[in-house]
């Protein structure tokens, strides 16, 4: 019911906050059409700032290339197969690593989140392992797998796994007791409880976890390539850096960022579908 938006509520104190859906003008379709351009404005604004900062001499263009230069370089790269091979290398390891992390994180998270005993038993070990950065596992990864994709995967999975795990655990812990009591009173089995009550409650947390994991995985894919030298965008960045090709560095950085935006657009679209019933989404979809 609450489609957060800003509406002045008149008289004494103008409060800008969540308004019932009906106060929002326009139909669902209309809003969806408006959604994209608004986001584009934001991106365009950012690009403008990045164009101006080196142009007005705030930072020397030798170190921070103006947007136009980056776009030009990027346009040149896009025509090359090697660019797409690098993108593919990164995206592939990202996707595989993410899938592994999401599945493992969800399964373990659901189990730990709903079985109090196991959660208490493992919490200290988790708190111990979680802050260990993937990057410090580089020697181990290289030792085990060299600069093979599996090295990257180890780093990606290790980093992304925790994101999903923690969110899912918090979510599984947050099941509405009345909802759970209802299920129990109808003698829903463990699996049915999981599927029909726990999982829908976890879903919003899970989606946040996946979005966090997706970007952490992308970060680790690129970082892994940078540090280990496994093929992909990160390696291209490192090579461009070491040959002082500044616009090229930024072109690859921008590519990474755009990948991130794409990933999020996808996640949002999925979210709108699977969470259409949730207060955070239903206001936005309803007229």
């Amino acid at each position, binding site marked *: 019911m609450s489609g957060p938006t800003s509406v002045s509520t008149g008289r004494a*104190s103008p409060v800008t906050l*969540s308004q019932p859906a009906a106060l929002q003008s326009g139909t669902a379709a209309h809003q969806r059409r408006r959604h994209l351009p608004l986001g584009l404005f934001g991106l365009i604004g950012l690009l403008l700032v990045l164009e101006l900062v080196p142009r007005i001499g705030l930072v020397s263009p030798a170190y921070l290339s103006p947007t136009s230069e980056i776009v030009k370089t990027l346009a040149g790269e896009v025509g090359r197969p090697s660019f797409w091979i690098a993108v593919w290398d990164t995206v592939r390891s990202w996707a595989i690593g993410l899938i592994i992390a999401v599945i493992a994180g969800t399964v373990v998270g659901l189990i730990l989140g709903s079985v109090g005993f196991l959660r208490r038993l493992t919490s200290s070990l988790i708190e111990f392992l979680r*802050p260990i950065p993937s990057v410090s596992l580089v020697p181990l990864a290289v030792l085990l797998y060299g600069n093979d994709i599996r090295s990257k995967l180890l780093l990606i999975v290790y980093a992304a796994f925790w994101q999903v795990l923690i969110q899912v655990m918090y979510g599984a812990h947050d099941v509405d007791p009345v909802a759970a009591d209802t299920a129990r009173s109808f003698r829903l089995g463990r699996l049915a409880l999981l599927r029909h009550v726990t999982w829908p409650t976890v879903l919003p947390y899970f989606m946040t976890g996946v979005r966090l994991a997706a970007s952490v995985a992308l970060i680790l894919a690129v970082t892994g390539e940078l540090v280990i030298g496994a093929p992909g965008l990160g390696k291209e960045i490192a090579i461009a850096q070491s040959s002082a090709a500044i616009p090229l560095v930024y072109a690859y950085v921008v590519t990474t960022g755009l990948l991130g935006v794409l990933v999020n657009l996808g996640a949002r679209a999925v979210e709108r579908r699977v969470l259409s019933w949730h207060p955070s989404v239903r206001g936005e979809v309803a007229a």
Partner: protein
Amino acid sequence: MTWLLRRATSLAFIVGLPLVVFVALWFGTAGSTNFYLPSMQVIMDSLASDWLGSRLGDDVLPSLARLAMGYLLAAVLGVGLGVLVGLSRPVRQVLEPVLEFFRAIPPPVLVPVLILFAGIGTTMKVFVIASGAVWPILLNSVEGVRAVDPVQLDTARCYRFSRRALLRRVVLPAASPQIFAGLRQALSIAIILMVISEMFAATNGLGFAIVQLQRSFAIPEMWAGIVVLGLLGFVLSILFRFVEDRVLAWHRGLRRAERS
């Protein structure tokens, strides 16, 4: 008596599994000949001699200071921006792609740009930490705010709460369970970013030392450093839980009461 028993069991839960894993590793790695995977005993030796000695003041403390500053900055930014973005759809629509763009840029490639603006000192490292830790806080704040019960909001609006009161009394408390989920996640990410930030332009710090040890092939010392990282995360998470238990006492109580 029961109090003592409760304390004892909760302690057993905390140390139980780590102890088992430790013992397993101790015997599993005893007599290891792999240069990169030394025996637990060697690691523990270097932990005691090296890390609990001079490095504590030289490397661990400066790291902790930067960590604290970066985490605080991330928390303020994340909650502040998160509430703003969560409350207003236009703001969300404009900012989301920009935020996602930045979120996808790996800190190691962001660092050179940060160096341009923030130099190579502590400021830069604090920004690097904040730039990574802010995301879970931001995302969870946005989602937490968006999921506030509509009836609770309607109530506040009816009583014409000021904007401030609405935020402080309704939106933030209602979103606080999820905000805390984000803060907790950010804590370990901040530690990770602390390590990454110290890979650039550093002269001391826990992350710096670990990378340095790794590069100079002091492998047992490096593993000992990683253990210190883990211990650090562990201690901080206990501190965190202490705070969380107080701030979210109502939520715990609510859930427990309803479950009892």
